[in-house]
């Protein structure tokens, strides 16, 4: 099947160039904080594009995604943590894991696969739900995953900080994973599965009438999506190196959903644009906060301002531009059109 058509090629090329530009800008700026932000951005791109694979193509809002991210982060961390650190962090750890200390990248990959398997088991029955029932069930799923992470002290250190992961995620690694994710998302979107799933998003009854098995199509998508979320979680875990269950909860869910809503969930371009814009906005507000702090002029605390701005933005977007900045057309389509005109 010819999956890399013109539109895909142009879009993928565009993002390759964009990523490389970002990489060189970082190289030129040479600040640790900037690099941290950019690395974080690439990890978030994996996460949001991963969410787009499911949510964008199936049209179903999923709250569970951050839960999948936590599975990836904890499972990969468990595998890669140095044996000595395990003695500090996880004192009740099961003996089989006690002497395991894999290579971090290998752990991240295993974490992704593990997340995909968990998602496969948990989500199959949920895939036939629509609308509010689907959203509520995914919300409940997030709560289930969160409660398990909080409760299962032996492997997660409970509600306490999970630390001691080797710092393995560099900007380059995040960039490469991120780019691979983008390629996957484009190919998937235009593949047989992607096309039929998008058809079912527009009209489920008609999609069934042309032979689409919606439950399985959604299921494949959420498995792929969970795999990417797991990878993102693993990369993030090995980037931050210490986190707690609270790092994967409603605030983060809100952040990711903001990204995909602002950018536009139907397109991969939208997902990336959303991640980019929200990150820039977030960093700008954080920068403002910092400048104010260092200036000693105003002592007023700006806590929560970022979230306030974000929530207002979301409400405005849903009223005025409910399908986001890139509602239907990928960036490649636009480029293609421009080229054809000239």
């Amino acid at each position, binding site marked *: 099947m010819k999956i890399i058509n013109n539109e895909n090629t142009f879009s993928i090329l565009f993002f390759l160039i964009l990523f490389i530009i970002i990489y060189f800008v970082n190289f030129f*700026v040479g*600040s*640790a*904080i900037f690099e*941290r932000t950019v690395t974080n951005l690439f990890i978030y791109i994996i996460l949001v594009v991963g969410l787009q694979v499911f949510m964008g193509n199936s049209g179903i809002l999923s709250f569970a995604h951050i839960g999948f991210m936590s599975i990836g982060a904890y499972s990969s961390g468990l595998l890669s943590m140095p044996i000595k*650190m395990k003695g*500090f962090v996880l004192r009740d750890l099961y003996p089989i894991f006690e002497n395991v200390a894999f290579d971090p990248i290998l752990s991240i990959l295993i974490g992704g696969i593990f997340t995909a398997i968990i998602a496969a088991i948990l989500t199959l029955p949920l895939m036939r739900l629509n609308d509010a029932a689907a959203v509520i069930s995914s919300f409940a799923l997030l709560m289930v995953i969160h409660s398990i992470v*909080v409760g299962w*002290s032996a492997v997660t250190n*409970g*509600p*306490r*900080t999970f*630390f*001691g992961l080797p710092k393995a995620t560099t900007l380059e690694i995040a960039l490469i994973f991120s780019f691979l994710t983008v390629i996957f998302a484009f190919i998937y979107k235009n593949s047989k599965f992607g096309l039929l799933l998008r058809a079912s998003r527009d009209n489920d009854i008609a999609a069934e009438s042309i032979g689409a098995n919606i439950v399985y199509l959604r299921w494949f998508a959420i498995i792929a999506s969970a795999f990417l979320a797991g990878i993102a979680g693993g990369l993030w875990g090995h980037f*931050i*190196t*210490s*986190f*707690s269950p*609270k*790092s994967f909860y409603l605030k983060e869910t809100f952040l990711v959903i903001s990204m995909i809503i602002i950018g536009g969930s139907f397109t991969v371009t939208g997902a990336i644009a959303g991640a980019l814009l929200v990150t820039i906005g977030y960093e700008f507000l954080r920068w403002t906060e*910092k400048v104010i*702090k*260092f200036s000693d002029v105003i002592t007023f*605390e700006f*806590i*929560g301002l970022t979230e306030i701005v974000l929530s207002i933005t979301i409400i405005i977007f849903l009223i005025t531009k409910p399908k986001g900045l890139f509602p239907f057309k990928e960036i490649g389509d636009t480029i293609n059109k421009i080229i054809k005109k000239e």
Partner: protein
Amino acid sequence: MKKNLSKLCIFVFSTIVFFSWTTLYAKEVLIGGAACETGMQAPLDTPGINGAKVAVKYLNDEKGGILGRPVKFVNLDGKSDPVTVGNSALEVIAQGAEFIIAPCDFDFGGPASMAAQDAGIVGMSLCASDPLFSSWSLGDKQFTLSMWNTTMSATAAEFAYNEKGWKTAYVVTDQIIAYTRSLSEYFLVHFDAIGGKILLEDTYTNGDNDFSAQLARLKALDEEPDVIFISSYGIDIALITKTLREAGITAPILGGDSYDDPSVWEALGTKFGSDVYFVTHTWMGSAEGHPDMPEFVKLYTDYHGSAPDTAFVATGWDTVMLFAQAAEIAGTTDGAAVAKALEDNEFNLLTGDLDYSNAADGHYPYKAAALVGLTEGNPSFLGWRNPENPPAP
């Protein structure tokens, strides 16, 4: 177009040059903080930050700064989230911080100290008392100002068994952070070691806001315990106490330094704020805590406009003063040298005399504990204690 581009280039370039210049040639000693001004950790960190600010002013006004350089203290809110704490620490380090003040807890403070260790500078937690906050887990330049939970729990156990004669105990452990867990753990070990009997251990998780399950199990016991040890955090302490009292359980309540929080006392109120005892860092009320205390209280009141209300204020002052003293001894702010000065010397602080073991022994803080009791929501000092044989970390 081209002209604009070159203008932009010049602007960007000069901005970069300016910023690198300011970081390279900054003359002040920048003390960076990643302590939490918001979230569940805030009640313990904010007083510390306030105390630290007083110390910085004192150093600049009276002592000519540190090593003759003026001192600046900037705290970027860690928001009670380990990830943000790490980010904030990195941010202040990038701005040229030479010393890091980490939040008052291992879970929240750990990431700040790790960042400090990576940058080769000394990090000190305001009051993390979990033995995990050691040079073993964080690195050879990392310290905590607080006694460890070994000391804190042993003090509580000995107070209960030896002084008050409470023979049986019921222990509730909040699962939320390492501090609450190890506090209970050492209490259990030490209370048992000195002859006490544990009737029941139970768990709670901060924010549950519901203690009925635990209450059901406590009520099912054949005998009522002599003392209830609640190792929890923040306002939940008041909630648990309230639930117990409402159910007609009158046994005295005992806990650690997380009780040293006026909002907890307020929440307990006159109705529930009696028969509550806790171990903390020092006593702010009078010179009984430390001869210099009245002077500090005056400085603090001048700076903030109101008197300090918790011992955590003193931890902030002490953290900054400890760094200043160690840097003066070392003659430099270099991380390794300051760490060595901290290991090799004994310091007299508002929170008691402090002596660190060397890095191989985990930077064990040898320190005494202060005991405070509550009556109708008002604290009173019961004296300094030094447990005889605290459990090993």
